[in-house]
């Protein structure tokens, strides 16, 4: 009996490769992202973005290739917020699931671990979220991203603040010790120096720590601006800590996480007047050519699907799907995609220049932003009355609430 089972298993193993490349009437899209672990919040926001794209494409019948429509099927693998797990998950999706292309992780750290894997197997990947400049400096041929790197967007927020009156003269800048947050703090520091703001303290701190003692020391320095690069829970802890020690600088700047609905939900009134950076909001004036006609219609679809407003990471993730969709339609490749079709897909992605609900998607083909989206303009946002308001540098920007109201007067 055992011998028969082994024989059957052996036959399956031998026959396995014969199924590889068998025609499919759908595109199999692998998704590696952080569905659990420390970065589960952001990971699940990217999942919403990818799911919403797949749902919209499939409602329209699928990706149109040569007069026929092929639906998309997403296959998820959890990176568990761990770069090594992310790399293993990508390898499994490519070798066992034989996906046609990949939608990438939320975090820069995991993206940096996954990128060499997709490079090795020559499978294109677009991350709808990762923002560290380190990814693009390595010039991975098969890795693309829809959100511009932080050194491109972070500077803008500092410049907006520097133009306020009275302009902040001193700043304390710090970042959590992970790829994205560190890059954010460095971008803030470089921009502050350029804008003539004196950086009186700059630190990279261990991720997830209670920073209240550090903030007590910062309170003694009385800086005009406190800028922090970190992730969702760290931002919430920091704002609570500042309130607990009753210290409100003139401006408090963070980057990603401020636009996440959970930030306002957790902090309520304390979230107000916190500045952040973004590349998209529900009110960004865009004209989409694919799936959604503009930002408000995407925002409405997101609320309908998940009952939660979309932020720029979710939008960027949906835009990553659109970029693949446009490129696949252009090369007229049918599933499954072989190695040459995938190489062709990379060239098509490099040629993509499309207006979407999220704004223009155009990947750089050279320079330090190689394969990152350079079609967008950075926005400075501020939480005003519990909502995300654009306060610069767009033309229709609202007036920033500055300086920050002391905690005791709220």
């Amino acid at each position, binding site marked *: 009996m055992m011998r028969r089972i082994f024989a059957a298993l052996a036959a399956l193993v031998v026959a396995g490769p014969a199924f590889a490349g068998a025609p499919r009437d759908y595109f199999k899209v692998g998704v590696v992202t952080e569905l659990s672990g420390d970065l589960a919040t952001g990971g699940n926001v990217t999942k919403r973005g990818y799911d919403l794209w797949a749902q919209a494409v499939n409602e329209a019948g699928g990706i149109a290739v040569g007069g026929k429509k092929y639906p998309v099927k997403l296959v998820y693998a959890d990176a568990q917020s761990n770069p090594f797990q992310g790399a293993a998950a990508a390898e499994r999706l490519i070798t066992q699931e034989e996906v046609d292309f990949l939608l990438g992780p939320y975090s820069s750290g995991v993206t940096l671990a996954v990128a060499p894997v997709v490079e090795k197997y020559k499978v294109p990947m677009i991350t709808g979220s990762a923002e560290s400049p380190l990814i693009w400096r390595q010039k991975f041929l098969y890795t693309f991203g829809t959100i511009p790197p932080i050194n491109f967007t972070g500077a803008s927020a500092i410049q907006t603040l520097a133009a306020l009156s009275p302009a902040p003269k001193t700043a304390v800048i710090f970042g959590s010790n992970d790829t994205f947050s560190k890059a954010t703090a460095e971008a803030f520091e470089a921009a502050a120096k350029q804008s003539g703001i004196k950086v009186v303290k700059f630190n990279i701190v*261990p991720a997830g720590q209670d920073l209240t003692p550090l903030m*007590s020391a910062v309170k*003694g320095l009385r800086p005009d601006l406190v800028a922090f690069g970190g992730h969702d829970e760290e931002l919430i802890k920091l704002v609570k800590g500042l309130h607990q020690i009753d210290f409100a600088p003139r401006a408090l700047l963070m980057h990603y996480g401020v636009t996440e609905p959970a930030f306002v939900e957790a902090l309520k009134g304390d979230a107000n007047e916190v500045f952040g950076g973004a590349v998209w909001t529900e009110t960004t004036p865009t004209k989409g050519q694919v799936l959604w006609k503009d930002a408000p219609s995407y925002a409405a679809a997101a609320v309908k699907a998940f009952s939660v407003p979309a932020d720029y990471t979710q939008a960027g993730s949906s835009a990553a799907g659109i970029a693949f969709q446009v490129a696949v339609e252009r090369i007229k490749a049918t599933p499954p995609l072989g190695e040459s079709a995938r190489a062709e897909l990379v060239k098509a992605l490099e040629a993509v220049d499309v207006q979407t609900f999220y704004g223009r998607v155009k990947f750089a083909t050279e320079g330090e932003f190689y394969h990152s989206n350079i079609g967008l303009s950075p926005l400075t946002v501020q939480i005003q009355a519990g909502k995300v308001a654009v306060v610069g540098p767009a033309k229709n920007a609202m007036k920033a609430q500055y300086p920050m109201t002391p905690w005791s007067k709220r």
Partner: protein
Amino acid sequence: MELLPQALMDGVMLGAIYIIIAVAFSLVYGVMHVIDFAVGEWIMFGAFAGFYLNRATGMDPFLLLPAVFVVFAVLGYLLQPVIQRVLSGKKGNPLLMGLVFTFGLSLMFRGLAQTFFGFYSLSIPSRFSTGSFFFEKGSFFLTVSHVRLAGLVYAIAITVGLQYLLKHTDFGLGVRALAQHKDAAGLMGVNNRRTSAFVYAIYVGVSAMTGVLIGTILAVSAKMAPEYTIFTFFVVVLAGMGYLAGVPAAAFLLGIIQSLFLIYLDPGYTLLAVFGVLYLILLVSPTGLFRKGV
């Protein structure tokens, strides 16, 4: 130099959080000899319970503490016989089985929390969470946040309460007897199963209350547990495994090292300093700061 009072005060208040996460754990280790990997998850469940109870009733989280204690103590009481069974097996290595079992529980609890509570970080609002006392004299200044001060008071109350229970009640006598020698305690009429179940119930209840407090001072999320598990181990090992009276000193030491490093030295090396100190102390005294651990 003008920051020193603040650095010490912040260290003490950080230490208070470490006391309350470690004190009950130390007790349960002393009696059951179980290293409960799920300690962070009990804190997390407690924090979520506090969050949802606060949302449903609008009551201040500090007033909710007794209710959270009772609910979780009952849960702990019901779960303890299962752990006891794993620990009292005749084959294999029961201590190791206890470790594996609670590690499995922690993974399962974390998964359940993410499934049921979602992935967002939350916060429990309290009337204490916003105010602070401020003292200034010359160039020295000191800010003491109300909610952290309340945490310190709570930590002292819990430690004193547990010490009283251990040293001045018949139940405590039984607990200490069990910790010293199970068989002899049994011969003297101490009911091992029931006493252990009560100790585990107290541990789960106190950990859950701690969660409510952490959710009020810091934040609540399904991913918060591992961080607190690590700090619990740190404090308990430094205090001496199972030596309850050593917990406050170890916790304050950890808090003050962290605070001084964050303020005066490079904050990037805070954790390195903390674990460096643990390593050095264990090298000199493997049974903890007071040489009284197991």
